């Protein structure tokens, strides 16, 4: 160990000492200079980033990294039962906390299993870093055991990805990954680390920051455009504020609420924007889009000035763009991603910048402005109240069969609107979005863009680990829950006391609904046969299982699940719901926003 002796001498020289100070062990001195292996570097970088949880699953290519995880106690590793769930859990952790989520998987199938999770995070702009193992550098391209081109496979569904080819680049690459994931429009970043890199050694220093000449996200909005926007807002006769996930991700809901309150304009949220403006606020018209409220969709279609904030006019939101464009309206669009602006809908005042920053400046301008919002606003609200009076979300509360909407409403009551709610994908997701009134951002965790069935349970795990004392509910269906049901085992191992509410209608409900409407009620492969006994299944993992068949038992079951007696327990509630229930209002694909089908019309 000649180099070690050299290092010790160097330390004494630097410290201006002739001998080690008392109490200094050789280990301590060496650790200042000790060359670290790639595996150590990965682990130390994660610690430096203040990572709390790494969700992962070991395998050949990442064994060195796991060995280092074994030796440390800076962060906790959560062993999932399938790599997809690792990424979903990391994703949910990020959505709920605003911090970067981290997942660690092995090469080959580890990486391919992670792809669904990565694509899910990409579509919803969630900051996560996924470290994937890779076969040793000399084996790359040799069709080695458990080899896939991870960088190639993930390229279209990541914000950026890296293949680390030299251990000397590892620390800087990790830093870049965290910066890129969290800044600008957030998104997933994959760092692919070949196995030989994890045992190569180099000196470790973690850079405080890294400059990237090719990556400089805009923060500040254009001041001229901001002035034009404010003028336009104050002149509006029939204004509307339409907010998306950007408000939640950008932690801008406080500013948004202030702007909206000052102007007195109606507000609608997208599926991803729920909680960005409080659902119980008088100005809030609820969610818009394919299953949006009547009042939100009508106001969106008929407004004359639209302020879009952190939203992207996607097909589930505005329906047919040609139909949307039939009504004349001027659009102001605030978004951090220039490519989201004028993509599907032509915009009059584009403002590229960080939503929080731009709204803060807008607020200042509005406060200075001499003009007040146009008097026509009163008439507009009268019209909106007429639309609202249709009460489009009403449903039969006298039904002898459990109505899924009722379960969600009761959950909202029992948890006092304060729970973190995750969902899977389908009818139950829409009912959760419509009937759980989210008053705070980062409480609604779902796969909006990719629509990934199976996210619900791992999402709930990620949220519950981040907030151990919070009430966390997973609203799911009997089909979705089975796509990651293996995570009941993870919940057992880590005692994650999430509450699962399965709206069990024995169908892939949303598929069934479309088949009923558009395929002559030919229910091709949408009936879920051979379901397990979910109560016994939950119990077999040591959890609490409940089956609820009657509407009068719904509330008691939810109360029991959230009672102090079961606070530490995972509870699986299997609600036997009405098979024929459909989600309304509904805008058919390709139709315009104002062409909704309402429940009463059938």
């Amino acid at each position: 160990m000649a180099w070690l002796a050299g290092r010790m001498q160097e330390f004494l020289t630097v410290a201006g000492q002739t001998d080690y100070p008392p109490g200094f062990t050789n280990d301590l001195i060496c650790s200042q200079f000790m060359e670290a292996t790639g595996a150590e570097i990965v682990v130390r970088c994660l610690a430096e980033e203040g990572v709390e949880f790494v969700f992962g699953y070991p395998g050949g290519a990442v064994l060195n990294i796991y060995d280092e995880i074994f030796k440390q106690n800076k962060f906790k590793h959560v062993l999932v039962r399938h790599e997809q769930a690792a990424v979903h859990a990391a994703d949910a952790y990020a959505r709920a906390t605003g911090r970067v989520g981290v997942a660690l998987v092995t090469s080959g199938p580890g990486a391919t299993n992670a792809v669904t999770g990565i694509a899910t995070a990409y579509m919803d702009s969630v900051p996560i870093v996924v470290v994937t193992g890779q076969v040793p550098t000399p084996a790359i391209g040799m069709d080695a055991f458990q080899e896939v081109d991870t960088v190639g496979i993930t390229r279209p569904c990541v914000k950026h990805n890296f293949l680390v080819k030299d251990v000397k680049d590892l620390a800087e690459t990790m830093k870049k990954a965290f910066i890129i994931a969290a800044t600008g429009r957030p998104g997933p970043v994959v760092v692919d680390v070949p196995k030989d890199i994890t045992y190569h050694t180099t000196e470790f220093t973690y850079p405080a920051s890294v400059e990237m000449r090719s990556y400089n996200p805009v923060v500040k909005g254009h001041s001229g455009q901001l002035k034009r926007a404010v003028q336009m807002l104050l002149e509006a006769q029939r204004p509307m504020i339409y907010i998306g996930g950007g408000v939640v991700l950008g932690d801008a809901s406080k500013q948004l609420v202030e702007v909206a309150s000052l102007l007195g304009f109606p507000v609608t949220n997208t599926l991803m924007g729920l909680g960005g403006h409080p659902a119980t606020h008088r100005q809030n018209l609820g969610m818009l889009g394919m299953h949006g409220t009547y009042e939100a969709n009508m106001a969106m279609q008929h407004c004359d000035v639209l302020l879009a904030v952190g939203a992207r006019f996607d097909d589930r939101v505005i329906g047919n763009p040609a139909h949307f464009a039939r009504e004349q309206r001027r659009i102001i669009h605030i978004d951090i991603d220039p490519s989201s602006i004028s993509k599907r809908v032509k915009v009059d005042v584009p403002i590229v910048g960080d939503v929080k920053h731009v709204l803060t400046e807008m607020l200042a301008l509005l406060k200075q402005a001499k003009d007040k919002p146009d008097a026509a606003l009163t008439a507009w609200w009268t019209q909106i109240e007429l639309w609202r009076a249709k009460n489009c979300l009403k449903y039969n509360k006298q039904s002898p069969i459990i109505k899924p909407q009722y379960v969600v409403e009761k959950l909202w009551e029992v948890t006092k609107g304060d729970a973190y709610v995750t969902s899977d994908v389908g009818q139950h997701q829409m009912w959760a979005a419509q009937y759980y009134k989210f008053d705070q951002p980062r409480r609604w965790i779902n796969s909006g863009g990719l629509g990934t069935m199976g996210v619900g349970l791992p999402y709930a795990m990620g949220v519950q680990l981040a907030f151990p004392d919070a009430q966390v509910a997973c609203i799911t269906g009997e089909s979705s829950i089975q796509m990651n049901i293996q995570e009941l085992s993870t919940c057992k191992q880590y005692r994650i006391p999430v509450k699962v509410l399965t709206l069990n209608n024995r169908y892939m409900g949303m598929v069934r609904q479309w088949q009923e409407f558009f395929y002559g009620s030919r229910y091709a492969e949408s009936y879920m046969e051979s379901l397990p006994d979910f109560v016994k299944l939950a119990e077999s993992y040591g959890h609490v299982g409940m089956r609820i068949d009657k509407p009068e038992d719904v509330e008691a079951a939810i109360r029991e699940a959230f009672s102090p007696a079961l606070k530490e327990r995972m509870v699986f509630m299997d609600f036997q719901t009405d098979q024929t229930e459909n989600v309304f209002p509904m805008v058919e694909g390709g139709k315009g926003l104002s062409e909704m089908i309402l429940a009463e019309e059938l």
Partner: protein
Amino acid sequence: MSTRHIISLLMENEAGALSRVAGLFSARAYNIESLTVAPTEDATLSRMTIVTVGSEDVIEQITKQLNKLVDVIKVMDLTEGQHIERELMLVKVKAVGASREEMKRTADIFRGSIIDVTESTYTIELTGAGSKLDAFLEAIDSALIIETVRTGASGIGRGERSLKV
């Protein structure tokens, strides 16, 4: 209305950089007529020239999406201003009998040069805008063409207009 655009960009000269751009075009169903890439005088930078066809909206999206790639440093639509466009073509033709002399004359007219000669063939090098190369191929008897290879367009702004870091 679709028009032809030449988009120039500077990006980090890293492995996989080209595939990010090519992947973007296929993933978003953008047209790509030609794409050329090579390192610049600064070896850490690659310069790419993409010829694409699309409506104004599509070209705007292409520019934005290219800018969004983390490795991309600068993007410029050359066709938005005065610019020069060049493409290199090598053509191998049959050159026997009367057509041998005729081929030489045509190459001269197009300011091409014959860079390889056998008893029965010429290989001609031509540089110019794509339309000039097309015109040459039209001017010669197509039955005489053995092989052609084109680089795709490269371009540069006129005058002070430049693309640099």
